[in-house]
């Protein structure tokens, strides 16, 4: 077991998959000569050359579409967006081309393509650079969406994404790239569509993904000090969603709080609440609570930004509400 950063775990996944399959290539802004805006692709240009590590102009729509076309032509593109905020410019290609190709061609043309990059807020990047897009993306049939929170999951899920014959969205995090964690040696694959119980508990389930795993784990520690046993369920995949894992946990704890990065309206948490009320209604002892970003564009000011984000304190307060402790 090696200790790696999330960044290096992604780098390993890319390197191993490119060694394994010559049809895999990486395309995006600054991925080659500059070694990646966040250094995820460090060293890959030297190893694989400019044919497979392709620097693009700043033209998200265009290079995302070229990636889709390359997938139609039998390659396995990995398209890196410097952030998902910029990928909004490429949504036409992700939604109208990649996600629909198999269906509208009557099953003839599948789409083995990965779109990846950091999602959600970092620190003080203000409104246009601090957005979590997962509910937009997970809304679309024909896409798979994963959001790993740890280096091990980042490596294992990116490898699965590259081997998948469908378009897979990989949501990373600028604030996660430096995170260190143990990554199993050798071939490490995490299947898409499986949640992971990151902490066992009996009183309340904290459902989270990506950066909110850290929020939920911290909240669980604080709750433990208050004699509340919180279970932390990391979704890892948002589409397909591991419904069985969510229901199993809620049936055990009878209470749930969803902690997510995005805005509240039509967010991922709303989907999870829908599932729980429908399939675990009789097991619920309290209405499910959601912790989200405040329903505003992200402010620049440090204090306002902190107030807008999900936090352990907010998650603890929500857990206490569903336990009727306050």
């Amino acid at each position, binding site marked *: 077991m090696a200790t790696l950063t999330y960044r290096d775990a992604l780098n390993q996944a890319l390197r191993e998959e490119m060694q394994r399959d010559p049809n895999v290539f990486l395309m995006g802004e600054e991925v080659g000569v500059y070694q990646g805006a966040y250094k995820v692709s460090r060293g890959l240009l030297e190893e694989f050359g400019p044919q497979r590590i392709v620097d693009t102009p700043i033209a998200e729509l265009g290079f995302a579409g070229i990636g889709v076309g390359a997938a*139609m*032509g039998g390659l396995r593109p990995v398209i890196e967006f410097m952030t998902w905020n910029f990928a909004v410019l490429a949504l036409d290609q992700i939604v109208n081309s990649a996600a629909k190709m198999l269906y509208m061609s009557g099953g003839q043309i599948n789409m083995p393509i990965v779109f990846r990059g950091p999602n959600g807020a970092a620190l003080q990047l203000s409104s246009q650079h601090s957005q979590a897009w997962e509910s937009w993306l997970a809304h679309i049939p024909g896409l798979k969406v994963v959001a790993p929170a740890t280096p091990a999951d980042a490596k294992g899920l990116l490898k699965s994404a590259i081997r998948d014959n469908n378009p897979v969205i990989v949501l990373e995090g600028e604030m996660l790239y430096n995170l260190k964690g143990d990554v199993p040696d050798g071939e490490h694959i995490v299947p898409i569509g499986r949640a992971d119980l990151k902490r066992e508990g009996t009183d309340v389930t904290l459902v989270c993904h990506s950066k909110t795993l850290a929020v939920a784990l911290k909240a669980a520690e604080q709750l433990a000090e208050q004699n509340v046993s919180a279970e932390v369920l990391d979704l890892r995949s948002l589409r397909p969603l591991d419904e069985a894992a969510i229901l199993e946990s809620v049936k055990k704890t009878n209470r749930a709080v969803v902690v997510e990065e995005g805005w509240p309206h039509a967010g991922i948490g709303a989907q999870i609440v829908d599932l729980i009320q429908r399939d675990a209604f009789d097991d619920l002892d309290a209405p499910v609570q959601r912790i989200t970003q405040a329903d505003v564009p992200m402010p620049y000011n440090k204090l306002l930004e902190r107030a807008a984000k999900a936090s352990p304190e907010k998650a603890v307060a929500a857990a206490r509400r569903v336990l009727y402790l306050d």
Partner: protein
Amino acid sequence: MTATARTPRQSAPSPQLTELHLKMLRQMLLIRHFEEKAAEAYALGKIGGFCHLYIGQEAVAVGALAALRDDDYVICSYREHGQALIKGISANAVMAELFGKATGCSKGKGGSMHLFDAKRGFMGGHGIVGGHIPLGAGLAFASKYKGTEQVTVCFFGEAAVNIGAFHETLNMASVWKLPVIFLCENNRYGMGTAFERVAAVTDIVEHACSYDMAAELVDGMNVLTVYDATRRAVERARKQSHPTLLEVRTYRYMGHSMSDPLHGVYRTKDEVEEQKARDPISHLAGKLKEDGVIDQAALDALDAEIHAEVEAAVKFADDSPDPEPGELFTDVLVD
């Protein structure tokens, strides 16, 4: 000019060339009659949704595709019935797709705007104006990556030239030297908007200068001119891996789609009639008659044969089953 007044030809066309010209005539007639039948079927409610016909533009698809190898890629906008037929999808499978039937080339899931036949290199039918232009470059990227020497022809209308994807893609195709031909079918109108009303640069070929790309302005009412220009572009793509922008000036006789008027607020009936006088099929048929390759009786026989083929396609589509209800949930993802 009459045949007797003409300067005698220096040499008669070669048998191969004559054969090609006859094939082109047949293909243009196939598209014409297919589209006429589609219009009828649409009026009868057998075809739904949007249906964009190719009547008037036949010389473009036929001339361009004649310059391709079988394994070359073709990718189109939603006005693609003609290219689909010429790339080798049967009239039966195209008509059945328009009818939404299980026997259609996209199993009835795509419809008029999403015809596909991956095995024949026909990569769709795409419905968002200009959205498929990067896909065309991507297919060429894959061919170059794999060293297959395939060429991609990407058809789009003049209105797509105002879309960002056009400019982003031409830039990258030129920087990366991709074996792709951007074939702009300039039929003058984006739906009901004349191009000159919404475009600062109306000679589309000029856009190639911005991207240091080869370009040609082509008469799209003459199938042989389209063929020759495309051959030059194919050569450039296949041998040198250089992209080309072709602006092919053509004209659609019908409205933008079946639900739109033929003329009225945006163009006059006189204009449409004037363009019909330049009809690409009459032009080629006239030339072949002048050259003594075909006479009226043979032309009539050919016409009748194609009518029968198209009638049979309608019958096939009519008789074909709808997709099974379970098909609703298939082809969303692969395993």
